[in-house]
């Protein structure tokens, strides 16, 4: 089976609220994690990444948290905007891998 998965398939968020998207992975050898955003009709777009030697990384309105003890990854989006409506994927890359393994995706819908 796949090594990466998401806890919830859909998330509905009020505009202006914070969003949290969760992801679980099973491969202990994973050393690099990426969150992607996919809008309708487009390819996955890089949001933020984190390496296994870190537990938190911040970008513009986004924060990724990594808990290696429980193999859990989360993406926090601050002040969610309508343009944040999309499918979000977590993905992981193990040492030596020539591939990125994706989770199932969470569809985020922002309510006005």
């Amino acid at each position, binding site marked *: 089976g796949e090594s990466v998965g998401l806890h919830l398939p859909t998330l509905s968020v009020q505009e202006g609220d914070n969003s949290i998207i969760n992801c679980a992975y099973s491969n202990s050898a994973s050393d*690099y994690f*990426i969150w*992607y955003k*996919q809008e309708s*009709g*487009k*390819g*996955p*777009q*890089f949001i933020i*990444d984190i390496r296994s030697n870190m537990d938190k990384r911040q970008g513009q309105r986004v924060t990724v948290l990594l808990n290696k003890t429980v193999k859990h990854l989360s993406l926090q989006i601050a002040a969610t905007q309508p343009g944040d409506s999309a*499918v979000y*994927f977590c*993905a992981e*890359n193990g040492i*030596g*891998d*020539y*591939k*990125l*393994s*994706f989770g*199932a*995706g969470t*569809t985020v819908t922002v309510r006005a």
Partner: protein
Amino acid sequence: DTAVSQTPKYLVTQMGNDKSIKCEQNLGHDTMYWYKQDSKKFLKIMFSYNNKELIINETVPNRFSPKSPDKAHLNLHINSLELGDSAVYFCASSQDRGAYGYTFGSGTRLTVV
């Protein structure tokens, strides 16, 4: 300039036909990939090429034949198309094993009728 470009964007064809999808990247990356996204949005690796050499073939039927004429191009040829091949196919590229991220194209929606 588009970093990873795929053509065509849409492809509708009949069962049994042979078709090709082309991919080009102008990022100077040495590794390229094909991913398949099914109707449930699940993304799965099909192939990866590093410096024109096949690195990963993820149990893809041999009706699918990738070809990498140079590091900037990775094309996908599909023989004897089947209904189950209908999906969105994404090309991607990275430098080496992708330790600094992967860049995806905008996808080719293949519909087999």
